């Protein structure tokens, strides 16, 4: 048995490996894309309102900016308080087709020194953190950004 893999938020991403994608919605009337997904209505004030259909977001984009978390974030962020804090990067990525910026954690091992504004990055599945024990616990899955050209 291993921990149950559960998305940290339902329906924000799908797929495994190279097929992993963030999921947004797109308005059929005005083409606006929403992430996090809007399922109720289009937020464009000039749009009469179309149907919102689920769409995968572009798997690659360019770094809009980046930073890191040198200190343990407060709850509800899940981290093992028994272990010393391991900083991780946060990367804001501009998706050209959708014309929006999506924030995400950098993949494990990605440091700020590996990043630059404008650099191409790709989305990949990751684990945000783990709860409970090996048998009955939960591994919370999420999305990570990683510079392209870095070997898996």
């Amino acid at each position, binding site marked *: 048995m291993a921990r149950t893999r559960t998305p940290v938020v339902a329906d924000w991403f799908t797929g495994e490996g190279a097929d992993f994608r963030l999921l947004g919605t797109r308005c059929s009337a005005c083409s606006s894309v929403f992430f996090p997904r809007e399922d109720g209505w289009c937020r464009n004030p000039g749009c009469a309102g179309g149907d919102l259909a689920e769409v995968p977001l572009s798997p690659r984009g360019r770094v809009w900016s980046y930073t890191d978390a040198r200190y343990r974030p*407060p709850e509800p962020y899940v981290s093992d308080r028994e272990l010393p804090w391991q900083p991780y990067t946060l990367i804001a990525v501009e998706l050209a087709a959708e014309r*929006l*910026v999506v924030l995400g954690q950098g993949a494990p091992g990605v440091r700020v020194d590996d990043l630059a504004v404008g650099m191409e990055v790709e989305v990949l599945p990751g684990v945000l953190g783990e709860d409970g024990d090996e048998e009955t616990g939960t591994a919370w899955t999420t999305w990570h950004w990683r510079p392209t050209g870095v070997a898996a």
Partner: protein
Amino acid sequence: MTGDVAVLGAGMHPWGKWGRSFVEYGTAAARAALADAGVDWRDVGSVVGADTVRGGYPGYVAGATFAKALGWQGARVTSVYAACASGAQAIGTARAQILSGLADVVLVVGADAAPKGFFRPAGGDRQDDPDWLRFRVLGATNPTYFGLYARRRMATHGDTLADFARVKVKNAASGALNPNARYRKAVSAEEVAASAVVADPLRLLDICATSDGGAALVLSSMEFARRHGAADPVRIRAVSTVTPTYPNTVLDLPDIATDSAAGVRPEGPAFRSSIALAAYEEAGIGPDELSLAEVYDLSTALELQWYEDLGLCAEGEAAKLLRDGATAPGGRIPVNASGGLASFGEAVPAQAIAQVCELTWQLRGTAGARQVAGARVGITANQGLFGHGSSVVAVR
């Protein structure tokens, strides 16, 4: 022009970590403002309170709490919440009541007793709360966003860590002169550089702390001010509290993503600029006419951002404006003569009111050692969670 309202009185409880109730800070600030105005509390027709912030959302009710603490006297009461812009919305509400004739004299109060460390979201499982989600999904604290903005400026405008440190050095020097500031000592660039990195590229001394504090204003109609013997009071000429326009393409707290510009092309200025533009338009003045500005330096880099968003310089030229000394005391347009959030730390519902207190004292010429010579026109700027922001223009 919409019309002026008079600032009859301004008062603050010093910022710090006093470990007492927000009611005490707000009541002290209110009493100070009433005394400054020479107005008896029982003659105040309306009280507007800026609610405290807890987990990103309204905490304690402010208006009625302060009305009760000062002694129920039957005033019209209002409480507002707009995250970091709560204080400005309280001022805007008071102003609307005065200009519409609903009240002659209004007391505005904001105060908070801030929790320690990072601001954190409300407890429980709140998948429908964007503020909860950014902590849960990303561990994205407020400094995360400040770090992103700072790095973006470095990449697009060539700002350096030395520029950011220079903001702190400037503001700390001013804060050292301000009896209401929490941090009242000079800070060197070396001290900034030696402080721990919190959110790359920003260090502890680049980022504002959270504080206890209280601020209050007594506002009135110009007619009341004249009857009251205040012939030439400081006047509030504009209060801008506009929302962003869709699509909002700058990543904003507490969001995980921006709006998409795929369906609608962004038109006009970005959000922060639009806050200032609305204030300029309402006041009928432009950035060239300013004597001073109080801006929301949640981080050193954000102060530089505001120079551009307020039109004090062209985009990308904020660091040059700073390096040239234009925003330092004695410069062309001193910014954060109060010491700014760098010297105060943020007491959320009080902060935007405190900015206007500083304008009031500067425009009266009573700011003591930090006085901006000949100050006639001042502006404040502020931004907070959930698409809130504000800008107030005051003149003398």
